[in-house]
């Protein structure tokens, strides 16, 4: 059984290549193999993941520059959408990139894509710098944390594949659903204010969010 599955795979499946020191080339090779069978969107997502791993493990400055050019303008765009002034948005985008450099070793491509990870960095920085609030987060090492029921086998699946499926999910959402999801990320407002702005009952906004999330989660293979 184990042999059969090994034979079916052109690369060793024991542990992700980036967890082994000299395996970086193997990792690149693996990514290339995978990239070839994926569409271009996914291939570029894999590349971003790989660059972020290189920053974390190898302090790779070239990789950092490429990530900066890709993400800094997007983070600035995100902060502008949320109402930050241009110069503050610029400063915070730079801070986010610095945080990325310092914390990149914590990035685990099995858990999140580079874009998702950097989104959370920018989100937390905004809460800290603009709202001046703490961001309450779980501690994964906490003994009081209730662990996942089954360490799902698909959890090991390349996150980049998830991202392209997620993109598909967002494509098939209705315009109304996309609108409420976008507003919950880019308009710093409670859902009651979002409802008011759209001229809708709060219940309608909530049910659109529920339907949108159900679609997204079905695509990610996590049926509630």
């Amino acid at each position: 059984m184990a042999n059969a599955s090994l034979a079916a795979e052109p690369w060793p499946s024991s542990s992700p290549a980036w967890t082994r020191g000299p395996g970086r080339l193997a990792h690149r090779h693996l990514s290339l193999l995978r990239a070839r069978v994926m569409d271009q969107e996914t291939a570029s997502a894999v590349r971003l993941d790989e660059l972020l791993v290189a920053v974390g493990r190898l302090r790779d400055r070239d990789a950092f520059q490429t990530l900066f050019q890709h993400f800094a303008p997007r983070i600035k765009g995100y902060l502008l959408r949320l109402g930050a002034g241009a110069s503050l948005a610029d400063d915070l985008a730079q801070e986010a990139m610095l945080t990325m450099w310092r914390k990149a070793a914590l990035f685990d491509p099995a858990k999140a894509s580079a874009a998702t990870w950097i989104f959370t960095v920018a989100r937390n920085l905004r809460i800290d710098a603009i709202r001046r609030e703490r961001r309450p987060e779980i501690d994964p090492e906490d003994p009081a944390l209730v662990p996942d029921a089954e360490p799902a086998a698909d959890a090991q699946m390349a996150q980049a594949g998830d991202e392209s499926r997620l993109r598909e999910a967002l494509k098939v959402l209705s315009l109304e659903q996309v609108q409420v999801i976008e507003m919950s990320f880019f308009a710093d407002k409670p859902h009651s204010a979002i409802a008011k702005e759209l001229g809708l009952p709060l219940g309608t906004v909530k049910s659109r969010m529920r339907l949108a999330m159900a679609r997204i989660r079905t695509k990610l293979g996590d049926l509630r």
Partner: protein
Amino acid sequence: MSITHHPGEELLIAYASGTADEAVSLIVATHIALCPQCRRAVRAAEAAGGVLLEDLKPARISDGALKAVLSRLDSPVATKPPVAKAVTDSNVPEPLRSYIGGSLQAVSWIPVARGLAYRPLFRRGASRAQLVRSAPGAGIAMHTHRGEEFTLVLEGGYGDTTGHYLRGDLQSASAEIEHRPIADEGGYCFSLAVVDAPLSFRSSAIALLAKVMGL
């Protein structure tokens, strides 16, 4: 343990997107520490945030920004002094444990009515977070509220006209509901309560106390 009362999707999204305020974020984050299902939902919403970020129209970054950041890469990081980890014999999960500094038994409770005690944690704007301790069979104060109220059971349980709530369960009550939760027999019920508007208590004595305590 099985959790049957979960936060609505819109709360999970508000937490993942970072638009929820600190008090609401605290109660959602403490729930997802106890609820793998909602934890996965938050991760899915964060992944949606990643896709939205990726698809955003990039803004022009100022000239010299990259150079400025590159020059700072090697500068030493001003690390904050390590925060002493709260005692781990507590069954209160993070992030709430750090807010209360340890176990529920060690909290200095303020009695407000027969069998009922509170401990305010913090308030930010219209939102506030507080711990509630109810003796077996005691009420969790009779109040109507403006805005929304969220209650997360930490230990024990309670019931009201809407259902029964145990550790990890999160109840959302909107302004219209006047519920009269009663703590289960057999032990204290500890919960975290978050309100986004001041409670309006029925009893004037409790109202006065609440005012004094800044609830």
